[in-house]
């Protein structure tokens, strides 16, 4: 006899921990990467893996005997996951495009030089 709630809890905890680790990794990347555009990529880890995995973990937790209508909570969390996936790249693109249009140039190449940097 398998205790499905235990299986659910183990899966949910796993997703929650991996998601939390992704959020922390993204934050570390934002601090460590050298310029604006490379930092955007680190923020992308927090946006996708971090946020979505934590929402998935919460979706599993929605099925508990103490809640009635638990699948409504599941549906609401699913909406949150979908809208996060739709809106976070729009925000990232808006920031990157604004920086590009104001003439902010990224570092390029393995030596991390700005364009026109003589050395």
């Amino acid at each position, binding site marked *: 006899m398998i205790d499905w709630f235990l299986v659910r809890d183990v899966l949910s905890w796993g997703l929650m921990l991996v998601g939390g680790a992704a959020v922390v*990794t993204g934050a570390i*990347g934002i601090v460590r990467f050298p310029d604006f555009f490379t930092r955007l990529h680190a923020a992308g880890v927090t946006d996708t*893996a971090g946020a979505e995995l934590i929402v998935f973990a919460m979706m599993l937790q929605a099925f508990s005997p103490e809640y009635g209508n638990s699948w409504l909570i599941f549906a609401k969390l699913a909406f949150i996951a979908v809208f996060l996936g739709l809106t*976070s790249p729009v925000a*990232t693109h808006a920031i990157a495009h604004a920086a590009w249009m104001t003439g902010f140039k990224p570092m390029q190449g393995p030596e991390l030089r700005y364009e026109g940097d003589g050395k």
Partner: protein
Amino acid sequence: MGRFIILVVVLAVVWLLLSGYFDKPLLLIFGAGSVIFSAWLAHRAGVLDAEGVPAGVFPGIFGYMVWLTVEIGKANIMVARQALAVEPKLSPKLFTVPNPPRSIVGKVIFANSITLTPGTVSIDLGEDEILVHGLTEELSDEAGIADMGARVAKIERGRA
């Protein structure tokens, strides 16, 4: 008219899922009224077109989302490895990729997919190409991104 009906059905499903009222007649009538009113407003505002109600991308979008999730997972691992590496081997570069989807919805799906994948961000959209910033040489996979564009164009053609 087809798009109007699709919008009414989608709004009704969203209303039911978010409210959770299935057995309160008065609230259901209010819900039905607000759904019809919202759909009428959308019709009146002239946004019931391929952009406002992009029914054409279904059902092809579901398979694409599964594929994209796997790609995002792989890219996440590569970027996380760079963020945690003792000496990150970054090699940022700018490059352009062709933008094969013809409709605005297709172009937006493609550009958003590029941005959603960690390690690549779409910076500027032209008529036929997208300017992309890549984090490392490995992540700046022009052939892989072109393949993604071809997939989006295929979903789009599914409607035609």
